[in-house]
């Protein structure tokens, strides 16, 4: 039993912290919030150079053959710095879905360009209902000879604006539990229209993606046709843990900012941190942040080791991180008082990220219900 990080993992964290401290201060984040692309391609190239895009992938595809725990270390730091980047959607969501699909041919085709940083990718799942489950997928893929025809629209597709390809979940059978087929679609394919959505968190980009008679070749299927949900579930579990790790970093930074402020801000002749209304709030923020961290890393370990309760651990991590990040960010703003309500102060960037993360990949209620199911309640 060892719930600690290896020396290599500590080194990786230090490397990520140093790079992002230097290259991604909030002043830079604010520039990228106004940027049309929404991220810095040179930064992405640097990240790929450092091998972060290679972390969880097999050596056969150019990867480092490390695990989700290592990836989470990097993502926690990215969440801490609010890095605007398609890294998580590319590596943590699309990449991990391919890697976990067991589809060797697609992995060989798709992963190398993720690993070397030359491609961004994403997953198109959610439709008009806003549901993050198989039942929410209504867009059908119809057979047309060897190819599939797609007609419809996907929403809340992360970073579709900059993606080279995306995994599209389409319905090919009338099965409430699954019946989905995953198709790998080029974002430049004829009939694909990417329409950016305006995100409350300008450090995270999303798009609506329209499919107007898009023809997808038969060999674009990821995994087994009709069993797409089972495959995607594995990818989503991993992406949820990535997001939980990111949100932990976000909460951690809010905690630190709040504690630092509470030590220096004077009211009524004492630092506000000397008042229990503030200090006990900070203690609660600590408990929530540490708990989010414990759950995220344990889930990462569980998925890396394919233990039976891995999916449960992932649901727990995402549910808890959703609530913790929101609550910690709200508390943080309250500790800062008026100054925390200004655009100039950074705390709102964290608040908005927390809110985005909370609602993305299924919110806390959604995952609590899944926890209840997985516990056979």
């Amino acid at each position: 039993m060892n719930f600690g990080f290896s020396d290599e993992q500590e080194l990786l964290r230090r490397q990520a912290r140093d790079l992002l401290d230097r290259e991604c201060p909030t002043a830079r984040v604010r520039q990228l919030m106004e940027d049309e692309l929404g991220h810095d391609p040179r930064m992405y190239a640097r990240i790929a150079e450092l091998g972060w895009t290679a972390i969880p992938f097999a050596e056969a595809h150019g990867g480092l053959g490390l695990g989700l725990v290592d990836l989470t270390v990097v993502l926690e730091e990215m969440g801490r710095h609010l890095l605007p980047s398609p890294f998580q959607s590319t590596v943590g969501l699309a990449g991990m879905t391919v890697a976990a699909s067991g589809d060797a041919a697609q992995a060989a085709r798709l992963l190398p360009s993720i690993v070397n940083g030359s491609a961004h990718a994403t997953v198109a799942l959610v439709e008009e209902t806003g549901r993050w489950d198989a039942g929410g997928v209504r867009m059908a893929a119809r057979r047309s000879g060897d190819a599939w025809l797609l007609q419809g629209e996907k929403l809340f597709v992360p970073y579709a604006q900059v993606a080279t390809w995306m995994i599209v979940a389409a319905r090919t059978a009338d099965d409430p539990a699954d019946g989905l087929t995953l198709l790998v679609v080029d974002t430049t394919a004829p009939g694909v229209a990417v329409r950016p959505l305006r995100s409350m968190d300008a450090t995270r980009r999303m798009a609506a993606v329209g499919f107007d008679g898009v023809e997808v070749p038969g060999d674009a299927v990821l995994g087994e046709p009709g069993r797409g949900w089972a495959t995607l579930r594995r990818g989503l579990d991993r992406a949820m843990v990535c997001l939980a790790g990111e949100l932990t970093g976000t909460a951690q930074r809010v905690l630190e900012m709040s504690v630092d402020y509470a030590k220096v801000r004077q009211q009524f002749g004492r630092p506000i941190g000397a008042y229990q209304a503030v200090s006990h709030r900070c203690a609660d923020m600590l408990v929530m942040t540490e708990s989010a961290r414990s759950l995220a890393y344990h889930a990462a370990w569980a998925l890396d080791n394919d233990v039976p309760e891995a999916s449960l651990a992932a649901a727990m991590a995402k549910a808890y991180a959703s609530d913790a990040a929101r609550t910690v960010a709200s508390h943080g703003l309250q500790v800062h008082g008026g100054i925390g309500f200004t655009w100039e102060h950074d705390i709102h960037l964290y608040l908005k990220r927390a809110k985005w993360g909370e609602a993305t990949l299924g919110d806390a209620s959604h995952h609590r219900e899944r926890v209840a199911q997985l516990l056979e309640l």
Partner: protein
Amino acid sequence: MDFSLSPEETRFRDEVRDWLRDNLDDRIREHVTGDDIEQRRAWQRRVHEAGFAGVSWPRELGGQGGTLMQEVIVNQEMAAARAPDLVNIIGLYMAGPTILAHGTLLRADEIWCQGFSEPNSGSDLASLRTRAAIDGDDFVVSGQKVWTSFAHVARWCILLTRTDASETAHAGLTYLIVDMHSPGIEVRPLRQITGDAEFNEMYFTDVRVPRANLLGEVGGGWRVAMTTLMHERATLGVGLQVRARIALDALRALARETVVDGVPRSADPLVRQQIAQLSIEVEAMRLNGLRGLTKVLHGEQPGPEGSVNKLMWSELNQRIAETALDLLGPYATLAEGDERAPLGGRWAHGYLRSRANSIEGGTSEVLRNILAERVLGLPRSR
């Protein structure tokens, strides 16, 4: 105990309602807002001409000589009809009691702002540092104020300054009325986390204020300021519960109208419990307010228990906004202005705006201190 209106009050309420029905429409609701000050002045002038601004003020001051209950009815009806806020709210409810040309105040010919808070004096108002030096017949004011609504359009400012730097805390404060056209005043809009700029920073550099503009005594500003704040909490307080009710109604409508797979979100047992609980607490707040109002109608001064309502309101308003966003699932992450954002992103904006509720007009921490110390008689925690 009687929660109904008297026949005269009912008649008056109907009068207000009729006027609102004839004079208020969605165009006004949407456009007479924010920075469009001329529109807002025009609206206030219409309200005044109709006899609904300064209802309880004496006739000789341009008011209607009506009852406090009538004032409350106007507030409730205006809020329930989602009428635009009066632009001269600070003049009417805070500076009002102390100034001469009341008719012009009611018509909003001149707008007022309030210069109390400073960057280093948030909850601890008594620690403010804006200096007013006495120089012949003038005060010479230098310093910085913050969180000032309407400063960019105001003609007058009620300003709390320190005249005696050797004194600390409450002593040595002086209350001045400052002409915002005076040289040396700079107003900078303060952008908030919503992207709006409702508030301003004000910088005073050697601004000369004639001695005649002193309110109360030199060094006696704290008492005057407390009167102002008491009026703020008591009079504006009546409006809070109506605002909460409006937010709640909107939430209920949202829950009914947000339909996922043919099922309205209002059918979800969790949503039902949350909205029911919010409804109960908004009702409790309304009733607590009526208990306070009853005392005032019986001639008692509004007391520290008025803090209960501000405390409840800010927390409720935040929870209403959070519940709305919870209802919306991923749509909650869309910003104002996105065409798919439900109601144009009004709830996303409202959520962000609500974060300030527990800070502005007395932080929840300070309000709990007031309740603990001044209502329950517990020792000071500071």
